[in-house]
C-alpha cells in the first residue's frame, strides 16, 4: 500500500482491535439430521476484529456464520452475540439480527423493490425510523458503496457487482455492530470482484467488526488480523495472515493453500 504515513497511522488506529468481546462461541456443535456438520467450535471475536474464514467446499464455513445470526440453529454449546445468548427466544433473535448484518453469495436483494427501498425497508419497520430519516441513511450508505445514482433502479437492472454493493448498503443501513460475509465475491465476474472488495476494505478501515468467508487471499492478507482454516466442520488452524500463508502448521492447510495457489 502506498498510503502516506499520516493516513496510515489514522487507519491503523481505526483498525485497532479492542478487548471488548462481541462474539463468543464455545464448544458449539451442529447436526443436519445425522450429519455432524460443525464439531466443537470455539471462537472468540473482539470488537474491531476482521476475521477471514477459508477452507474446502462443504467444510461448514457458511453454516458456522449462519449460526451467528441464527439462520441455522445449533444443537449443543453456547453462542453469545454482544453478551446475549442465542436460544429459542424469538425477541432476542430479532434483536441480534438487527445488530448483525449479513451479505450473501447470491446477493438476495428483494427483486420487487428498488435499491433504495431495499435499503430503507428494515430501518423503517425494524428500527422504526421515519421514512425521511431512513431515506437519508440509505443514501448515505449507497454513497459509501459508490452507487447513489442507481438508487431508483430495480436489482434486475444492476450488474452483479452493483447488486452486491446494494446488498452491503442494505446491511449497513441497520447500522450493525458486526458484519458477516458469505463468499461475497464468488458469484461475480472477475472485473466486478475488485469493486466489491474495495468496498469491504473501506469498511474494515472504518473499524467494522467483520467475519468474511472468502478465498480472496489478497483481501485476507491486506485487511484480516486473523485467518481461520476449517475442514470437516472443525477449526483446524487460526493465525495471523502472515504466519498463516507463509508458515502453515497443519498438513491440511498446506494442501489447501497449495490447491488454491496452484492454478
Amino acid at each position, binding site marked *: 500500500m502506498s498510503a502516506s504515513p499520516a493516513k496510515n497511522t489514522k487507519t491503523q488506529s481505526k483498525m485497532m482491535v479492542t478487548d471488548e468481546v462481541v462474539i463468543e462461541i464455545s464448544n458449539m456443535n451442529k447436526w443436519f439430521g445425522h450429519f455432524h456438520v460443525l464439531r466443537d467450535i470455539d471462537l472468540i471475536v473482539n470488537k474491531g476484529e476482521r476475521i477471514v474464514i477459508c477452507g474446502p467446499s462443504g467444510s461448514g464455513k457458511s453454516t458456522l456464520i449462519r449460526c451467528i445470526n441464527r439462520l441455522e440453529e445449533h444443537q449443543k454449546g453456547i453462542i453469545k452475540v454482544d453478551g446475549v445468548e442465542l436460544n429459542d427466544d424469538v425477541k432476542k433473535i*430479532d434483536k441480534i439480527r438487527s445488530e448483525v448484518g449479513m451479505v450473501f453469495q447470491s446477493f438476495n436483494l428483494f427483486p420487487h423493490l428498488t435499491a433504495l427501498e431495499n435499503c430503507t425497508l428494515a430501518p423503517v*419497520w425494524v428500527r422504526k425510523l421515519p421514512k425521511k430519516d431512513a431515506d437519508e441513511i440509505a443514501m448515505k450508505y449507497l454513497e459509501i458503496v459508490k452507487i447513489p445514482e442507481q438508487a431508483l433502479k430495480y436489482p434486475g437492472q444492476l450488474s452483479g457487482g452493483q447488486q452486491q454493493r446494494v446488498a452491503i448498503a442494505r446491511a449497513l443501513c441497520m447500522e450493525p455492530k458486526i458484519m458477516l460475509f458469505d463468499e461475497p465475491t464468488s458469484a461475480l465476474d472477475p472485473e466486478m470482484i475488485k469493486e466489491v472488495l474495495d468496498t469491504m476494505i473501506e469498511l474494515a478501515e472504518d473499524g467494522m467488526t467483520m467475519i468474511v468467508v472468502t478465498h480472496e487471499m489478497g483481501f485476507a492478507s491486506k485487511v484480516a488480523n486473523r485467518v481461520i482454516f476449517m475442514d470437516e466442520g472443525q477449526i483446524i488452524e487460526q493465525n495471523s495472515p502472515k504466519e498463516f500463508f507463509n508458515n502453515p502448521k497443519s498438513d491440511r492447510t498446506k494442501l489447501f493453500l497449495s490447491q488454491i495457489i496452484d492454478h
Partner: protein
Amino acid sequence: METKYSFVRKDLVSEQPPPLTQVGITGWLWRNLFSSMSNFTTVTSSVQSILMIILTIWLLYFCGGQLISIIDFAIISAVWSDPDGLKREVCATVKQGGDLPADWYGACWPFIFAKKKFLIYGRIPNEELWRANLVYAGLFVGMGYIIWEKGQGRKWVGLGMLTLFPVISLILLTGANFDISFNLILWTGILLIVSYLVGYFSSRNYFGEIFEQFSILFNFLALILFLFLALLILFSIDYGLAPIDTLDWGGLLLTLLIAITGIVASLPIGIVLALGRRSNMPIARVLCTMFIEFWRGIPLITVLFAASVLIPLFLPSGANVDKLLRAVIGIILFSSAYMAEVVRGGLQAIPRGQYESASAVGLSYSQSMRFIILPQALTHVLPGIVNTFIGLFKDTTLVSIIGIFEVMGIFRAASQDANWGSHVQHATSYLVAATAFFIFCFGMSRYSIYIENKLSRDNK
C-alpha cells in the same frame, strides 16, 4: 507489403427499410400465416405446408359457418319488436299460431326486453328498485375509480369498497331492521370487554410471560367481536326501509353479489390457509391441510345441497340462518381452498434466499411475509388467482339448483313463462347469459393481463 485480403470500407452502408415480410400487415400475415405453409423445399416441409393449408381452410370454413349462424340467429332472423303486444305469437311459427314460416329460427328479443327488470334485479318490488340501483351505481363507480390509474386516493376508495360498501349495500338490499335478540348483543359486548381487558393486561405482563405471547390473539379476538357487535347493532336499526327477502334478490344483481363476495373473501382466507399449510407449527399445518383437502375433495354441488338441506337439520330449532348466506359461505370456503393451493404454489416459487435475507435484516415473520414474500408470490401466481376468480364467477350459476335465482336460474324461470312459450326462448336466454358471462370473465382476464404486464414492466 500489401496482402490481397486487405479490405477497407470506403462508403458506410446506410440504414435500409426492412423487407415486406417483416413489417406491416403483410409482415404480420407472412409471419403468422403463410410462413408456416409455403415451404416446399423438402419433402417433410412440403407435407407440413400442405397439412397447414388444409387445416387453415377447414378452420376458416368451420368457424366462419358458426359465426354466420350466430349472426343469423341473433340479428338477421331475429324478431326485434312486438308493437302490438302479442307476446307469444310474435315469436311463433305458423304452426304454433304465429305468422313466421315453419322453419324460422331466430332470437326473440321482445321476450328479453319484457323480462329486463327480472333479469337485472330478480323479484325486488318496483318501488324498491332504487335501492338496488344505488348498489349497482356504487359498485360500478367504485370499481371504475379503482381501475382508473390517475384517480387520487385510490387506496382509500379501495378500502372503502372492501369495508363500508358491503355493509351499506347489505343494509340497502335487506332493509336491515332485523329482529336481533338483546341477549346476543349483550353477550357479544361482555365477551368483547373481557377479551379486550385480558389482551390489554397480558400485553403489559400482568399475568406472566406465557400470557404475554397470547396477547395478540386476545387483541385479535376483541377486534373480531367488536366488528361483529357493530354489525349486529347496524343491522338491528330501523332505517325506514321496507324489508326485502333475500330470496327475492335475483338475476345479474345476485350473480354479481355472490361472485364479488366470494372473490373478496376467498383471497385473504386462501392466503392465510396457504401460509398455515407451510408454517412450522404442526397444529396450524395439520388444520390448514385438513381444511384444504376437505373442501377440495367434495364437489361444489354437494356443498350447496348440504348448505341448503343438511345444515338446517343440525341448527338448533329457532335458529335460522338465511339460505343465501349459507350458500355464499359454502362458496367462499370452497374457493378459498383452491385459492390457498394457488397461493402456496407462489410461495414455493420464492427462493430460500429471500426468506433468509428478510430475516437477516431483522424483519419479523409477519413483516417478511407482508413486504417480501407475499408481494412476490402473489405476482407470480396472478394468472392462477384470476383463473380461480373466473372459475368462481362461473360456478355461481350452480346456486340456481338450490332455488336461488341468479342469472341462469332467472333465465330458466323466465323462459318457462307460458305467456312467452315458444321454441326460441331458451336459445335466446342462453345467448344473452353467455354474452353476459363472457363480458365479465373476459374483462377480468384482460385486466389481469394488463396488471401482469404493468408489474413486469415495473420490475425490469
